[in-house]
């Protein structure tokens, strides 16, 4: 296929298909990933083509899914686990934190844990409770895990390829409300480094740093700001652990203003880590404190309130203005 315009969900599907083709040790596991192709159809057609032995409908038990994936990894497999929605990863949290993350260290490196956990995350799709959360900070705080999230179809395709090839456990957060957004994927390109941030738009007055679903919002905000004569740079972080502070720092040394945007609650969120570290790195460059735009310290609200809860164009622009006003 080489270059093609694909919805983000389809890019993931293609990436999984490629991985299954390239490496017989790759397995797909999860609830409803087989005939149904997952509730978002991300695994559509894979069981039909690769069989029930490689695309595995599991019992309804997330700890069991991740726990058996660990066992399969110990046996030499490379399981790619799907958690159906963000809010349902918690039954597996113990296996992820106490086992998956620590096994390599516990074994002094003699065991590897090439397990990818795919989690559709974030809001904006009008769903019921537990279907719209952004728990990335709860994984990024845990050493031994890598945490990433693509914002484009190309990144979705390539970052997943790289995650599957990695010998480390990777939590792969999929911006579910962008599943249907189309953009170009070159399946023959040479991908960049997995944990490098990407300057998604250049600018000189202020840096917006975001990842996953919020990149699009930030790009829209930058375009709107442009109309008001403000030149906003947008950095797509792509990786929440590790975070590519070098790229953010380089941007902030230029713009001297930073606003971090994510859907997750601000309190103890990734914006805090970025603010703390960038302030330390750019103390004499910053003309304003790093501002954060994100969710409130409240459970994700019912769908009819999510627009107010989620960072949107206006809230981002408001923060841009507040930052520049310093």
């Amino acid at each position, binding site marked *: 296929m080489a270059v093609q315009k694909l919805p983000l969900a389809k890019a993931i599907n293609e990436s999984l298909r490629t991985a299954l083709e390239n490496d017989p*040790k790759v397995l797909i596991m999860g*609830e*409803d990933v*087989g*005939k*149904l*192709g997952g*509730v978002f159809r991300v695994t559509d057609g894979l069981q039909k083509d690769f069989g029930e*032995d490689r695309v595995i*409908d*599991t*019992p*309804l*038990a997330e*700890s*069991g899914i991740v726990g058996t994936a660990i066992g399969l990894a*110990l*046996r*030499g497999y490379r399981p790619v686990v799907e958690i159906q929605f963000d*809010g*349902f990863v*918690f*039954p597996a949290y113990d296996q992820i934190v106490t086992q998956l993350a620590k096994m390599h260290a516990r074994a002094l490196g003699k065991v590897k844990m090439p397990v990818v956990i795919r989690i559709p995350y974030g809001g904006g799709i*009008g*769903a*019921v*409770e*537990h279907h719209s959360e952004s728990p990335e900070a709860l994984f990024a705080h845990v050493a031994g895990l890598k945490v990433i999230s693509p914002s484009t179809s190309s990144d979705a395709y390539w970052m997943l390829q790289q995650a599957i090839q990695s010998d480390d456990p990777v939590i792969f957060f999929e911006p579910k409300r962008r599943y249907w957004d189309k953009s170009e994927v070159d399946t023959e390109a040479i991908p960049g480094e997995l944990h490098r941030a990407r300057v998604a738009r250049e600018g000189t007055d202020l840096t917006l740093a975001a990842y996953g679903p919020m990149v699009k919002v930030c790009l829209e905000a930058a375009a709107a700001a442009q109309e008001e004569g403000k030149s906003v740079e947008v950095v797509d972080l792509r990786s929440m652990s590790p975070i590519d502070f070098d790229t953010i720092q380089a941007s902030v040394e230029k713009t001297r203003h930073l606003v971090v945007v994510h859907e997750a609650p601000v*309190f103890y969120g990734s914006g805090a880590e970025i603010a703390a570290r960038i302030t330390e790195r750019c103390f004499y460059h910053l003309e304003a404190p790093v501002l954060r735009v994100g969710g*409130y*310290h*409240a*459970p994700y*609200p*019912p*769908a*009819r*309130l999510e627009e*107010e*809860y989620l960072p949107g164009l*206006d*809230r981002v*622009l*408001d923060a841009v*203005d*507040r930052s520049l*006003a310093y």
Partner: protein
Amino acid sequence: MTVESTAARKTTRRSSGTKRTASASAKKSQTSEPELVQLLTPEGERVQHPEYDIDLSADELRGLYRDMVLTRRFDAEATALQRQGELGLWASLLGQEAAQIGSGRALRDDDYVFPTYREHGVAWCRGVDPTNLLGMFRGVNHGGWDPNSNNFHLYTIVIGSQTLHATGYAMGVAKDGADSAVIAYFGDGASSQGDVAESFTFSAVYNAPVVFFCQNNQWAISEPTEKQTRVPLYQRAQGFGFPGVRVDGNDVLACLAVTRSALERARRGEGPTLVEAFTYRMGAHTTSDDPTKYRADEEREAWEAKDPILRLKAYLEREGHADAAFFEALEQESEALGKRVREGVRSMPDPDHMAIFENVYADGHALVDEERAQFAAYQASFADSAAEGEVK
């Protein structure tokens, strides 16, 4: 040595043929149908059961019928409202009316219910206003009714969690010296969750007065029950030290009798019981689901012949327990219910934006207060004619 090379060294006597054998044997134990308590055949004939029997007046029988019809009507209305865009989602109970009404009507007022997200029929039995159930599916709240008004807990979406809440509640009932019982609903898929097993352990060890009511509707979204167990689910209980029983989940009389007996057992201080109601999810998992992707029409058709409402209707008619006037009046009551629900939903107000910050804590939290104030100021700034740039 890598794991791969270890694997490669090994002999390969186990062939894929073995796996076929295994699933075949699994299937066998599934199909050698276990004892299933039935009091009313699919044709509407009353049969006797040595252990479970029940004697209901014509009035009570009509009541059960009415409950099922109205529940189905409400459910259909909700599905329609979803199609019309009034609800974001709906999880239909179509086909499971007998399991829910039978068990729901076995409860006393002081008993307590812990539902999943599909127990609309049980909610009906508890007197919960059906419109109340729709708030979360419309997206105006996450449930929000007062569980203690009707002893009907909030819907729980995270699969299996509520079985532990039910167990803890039942432990509390026992501590209080009360003789109420508790019932926890869950599905065939939920049976795989660790929490459900832990609730079996806790309830057995503390001898808690709780009935675990599993509606085995054959599917957990796209996965058939064979993906969760290779033996009938009711057997799970035995290994935890309490009885399990499978009941015809499309037979409202049997569901009532078996649940009542389990509740009485709990009240007598004999601890938990697992009831597996063998039934079928006639519709999609939810309105977001497309079952044509994973199951055959014929299966559904076979279950149509076992419809819980039709069989009770046949019985009522055969026995002369209900006449045309009854059915006519019920038809009208159904329509009225549909209308009331429809209007109730349409007039349901959107929540106030500030509701985001309400009830996060009972005793307050400084950050919530701060964010609430900032949010209010920010919202107010739009009312001002001032430019956005001036918002602090």
